């Protein structure tokens, strides 16, 4: 239907004129009801995270494989990386693991085990496979507010300078990886080469 906006407005005007005045409150109520129903039913885009475009906030946490070693953001500067915050007790995290295993071939992945213990994390990783270059243990946790964590899993795409280029507050799925993650990763890699 190829119609100019003025035509559409004219048609709406004519229809509105045919509503008898006493029906106007009902018409408005129905109109509002439709708007509200639509806003509830249509997919809801979360507002973009304020952390995107900023340097990954700093942390220093013991590594699960060696508590005498620590992991901090500076350890993975130099190349793009994914930071995946997960927990061994988190069901969607487990569901995400196969995708992370696949991604680990394309980009280095670092993990933060959130609200967890070294024993549980080690057991979990031996079951699901380990896509991580290194996993930091955040037992307390201390990173919740500084990293803007709503829950687990949370994944950050960080460029070679440590700037967060994307943040996913939901588990990754194949569509998000294909449509958002991989294109962004390629963009970063292309720019890093310049």
């Amino acid at each position, binding site marked *: 239907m190829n119609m100019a906006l003025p035509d559409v407005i004219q048609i709406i005007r004519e229809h509105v004129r045919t509503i008898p005045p006493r029906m*106007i*409150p009902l018409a*408005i109520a129905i109109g*509002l009801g439709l708007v509200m129903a639509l806003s509830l039913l249509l997919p809801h885009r979360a*507002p973009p*995270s*304020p*952390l995107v475009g900023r340097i990954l*906030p700093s942390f220093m946490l013991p590594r699960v494989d060696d508590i005498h070693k620590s992991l901090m953001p500076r350890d993975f500067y130099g190349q793009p990386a994914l930071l995946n915050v997960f927990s061994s007790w988190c069901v969607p995290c487990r569901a995400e693991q196969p995708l992370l295993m696949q991604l680990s071939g394309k980009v280095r992945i670092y993990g933060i085990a959130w*609200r967890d213990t070294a024993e549980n994390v080690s057991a979990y990783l031996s079951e699901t496979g380990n896509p991580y270059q290194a996993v930091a243990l955040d037992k*307390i*946790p*201390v990173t*919740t*507010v*500084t*990293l*803007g*964590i*709503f*829950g687990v899993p949370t994944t950050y795409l960080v460029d070679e300078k440590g700037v967060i280029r994307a943040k996913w507050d939901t588990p990754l799925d194949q569509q998000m990886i294909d449509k958002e993650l991989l294109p962004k990763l390629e963009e970063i890699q292309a720019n890093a080469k310049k």
Partner: protein
Amino acid sequence: MAIFLIAAAPLPAKEEARAQALFHQLRCVVCKGESVAESSAEVAADIRAMVRTRIEAGDSDEQITQTLVSTYGTQVLMRPPLARGTLPLWLAPLLLLAMGGGLLFAYFKPARASA
């Protein structure tokens, strides 16, 4: 780390009152609608601990909420800020009220008998 653990417990009376006031102003970001004061979510517990730690460290309410907004966005506030983007949110209820009032007035306006 020890300071963090201590701040997870209630503070002395005056500071705890300030903490509780802030808890009611902050939204539990994973259970929309609840404030951090009521929520049993883990993230809410972490936000409460952060607020207490910052109060002990001497930060102002403004600084604490600013830090939370800087990582979670304005959705962490129970009262959305008054800004250009949120103007429709604030004005819509008033407009709807005015419209409703106008309609009622028009409906109940006594018919003027023509002399």
